[in-house]
């Protein structure tokens, strides 16, 4: 097709698109809220699960090591989408009719949709398996001499971990953790399949009502892009702060990081 014919063939409803993006419907705002809070809760729970799993995996107790190994093996080795169906549709059958995810789940004053809770549970468990490996790598990056020194000072295991090892491991853990959260913001879209009204589901509904397919999906893609862009800015701030006084080279800024413009340390000609 010649370029001008291609140009003439393009159908793009600019009015619909601009309205979809800049005058978001209450449904889209609601979807955005679900995307954000589900990401934050699932990531936080994933960090806790992952840390516990990493510590269990490195413990001297063979049973704990086996549990951690099996957990990571299963949840990294099976698709999240399948896990989500198992959690939401499978568990009531397994539990003989006991439904952990009814229409509304009430925690004290907070009422949550059962589907949202099921989505967050699946995302958290899955994320924990990945975080387990990240935390383990972080702990292993700390020189064993640090642990030995702590022991020789009479520190307990708990004290050694909380005061000496984990703080140092954090510097190695945070960059991949940021990556995981970036991923999480996008992966929440899988919850659409269990009827969670997150952003992607709202776009699907807009598409099926209007057939503005490209406009709706591209519009919601921009929302995800905005979220991950904002997160990248926050992440580089966190990393700068954590890295202060420890690295000789300047950390790449958010824009150069996103656009892949990072330079090697050599073309800066040494320290600052």
């Amino acid at each position: 097709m010649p370029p001008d014919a291609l140009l003439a063939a393009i159908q793009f409803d600019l009015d619909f698109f601009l309205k979809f993006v800049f005058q978001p419907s209450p449904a889209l705002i609601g979807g955005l809220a679900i995307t954000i809070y589900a990401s934050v809760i699932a990531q936080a729970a994933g960090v806790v699960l992952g840390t516990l799993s990493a510590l269990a995996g490195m413990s001297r107790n063979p049973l704990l090591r086996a549990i951690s190994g099996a957990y990571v093996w299963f949840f990294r080795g099976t698709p999240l989408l399948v896990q989500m169906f198992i959690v939401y549709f499978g568990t009531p059958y397994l539990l003989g009719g006991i439904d952990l995810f009814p229409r509304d789940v009430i925690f004290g004053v907070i009422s949550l949709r059962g589907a949202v809770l099921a989505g967050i549970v699946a995302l958290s468990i899955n994320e924990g398996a990945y975080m387990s490996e990240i935390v383990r790598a972080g702990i292993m990056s700390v020189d064993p001499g640090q642990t030995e020194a702590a022991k020789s000072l009479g520190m307990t295991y708990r004290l050694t971990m909380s005061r000496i090892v984990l703080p140092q491991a954090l510097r190695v853990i945070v960059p991949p953790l940021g990556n995981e959260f970036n991923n999480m913001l996008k992966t929440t879209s899988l919850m659409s399949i269990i009827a969670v009204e997150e952003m992607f589901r709202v776009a699907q509904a807009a598409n099926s009502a209007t057939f503005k397919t490209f406009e709706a999906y591209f519009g919601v893609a921009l929302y995800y892009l905005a979220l991950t862009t904002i997160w990248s800015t926050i992440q580089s701030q966190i990393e700068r702060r954590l890295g202060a006084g420890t690295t000789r080279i300047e950390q790449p800024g958010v824009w150069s990081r996103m656009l892949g413009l990072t330079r090697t340390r050599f073309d800066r000609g040494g320290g600052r």
Partner: protein
Amino acid sequence: MLSLRHRTVGLTGAVLLLVSACTGAASPSASAPASAPAASAITPPAAIAAAGKIVWCVDVSYPPEEFYAADGTTAQGSDIDIATEIGKRMGVGTQIDNTGFDGIIPALLAKKCDLIISGMNSTEERKKQVDFVDYLKVGQGLLVPAGNPKGIHTLDDLSGKAVAVQLGTTNKDALDAKNKELKAAGKPTIDIQTFQADTDAFQQLALGRVDAYSGDSPVAAYYASKPENKGKFEVGGTPIDPLPIGIAVRKEDTDLKNAVQAAIDAMYADGTMKSIIDKWGMTNAVVLLK
């Protein structure tokens, strides 16, 4: 996520019998149409004839109109039989591409398939995008737990209650429209839970997470009549008058549209349509056009 699974549909024994009875051509399978020249009474458009098959976009999650057999890979149902029969009458094969309902018209427009058959109402909104060859009239049904504990007979009865429905359907549109009415009247709205697959929407009712399932009446009746569901569900009401469902075709494919229309007319004339409807137990749930 909306994977397009490709498969050629094998004919079930029953359809085979039916087809051979109606056309006198006993071809062993739909994938070998060349061996059944007697059946091709209708000339397909050149592109279809050259391809040797019609590719259909079908959302295979809507029993008894389209669903998977126990093997999980063979698409079956009244729409599948109708599609296969249309191909047969044009002397070409049938390929069913499973496509999510909310993306099914875009898939047709993007030429991922030649036609859509998926229990689709030929609504004015959809007619802006595609043309239709109507083949049946179908109403909507509300499926509720046996005994109808919440007394749900109409859409108004759903005010303040939860209902599961498939995304992108006229059933969902009807609920949305009702919600606007309820809101304007200051009444509690319906909690509409939408699912990608209709079978998941029904699952939600089976798990007791919603008060009702909304689907087309043949589908609601089918779910209620499945042996494992006997005595568990009933059709609480049929809130919508029967509306035509049609085979969707791209607006520019007028030759194909005419050929499909001719095939449908012939299927009505020789009783094939009625046989298919009877075979899938839809006799009381649909209205024949002729």
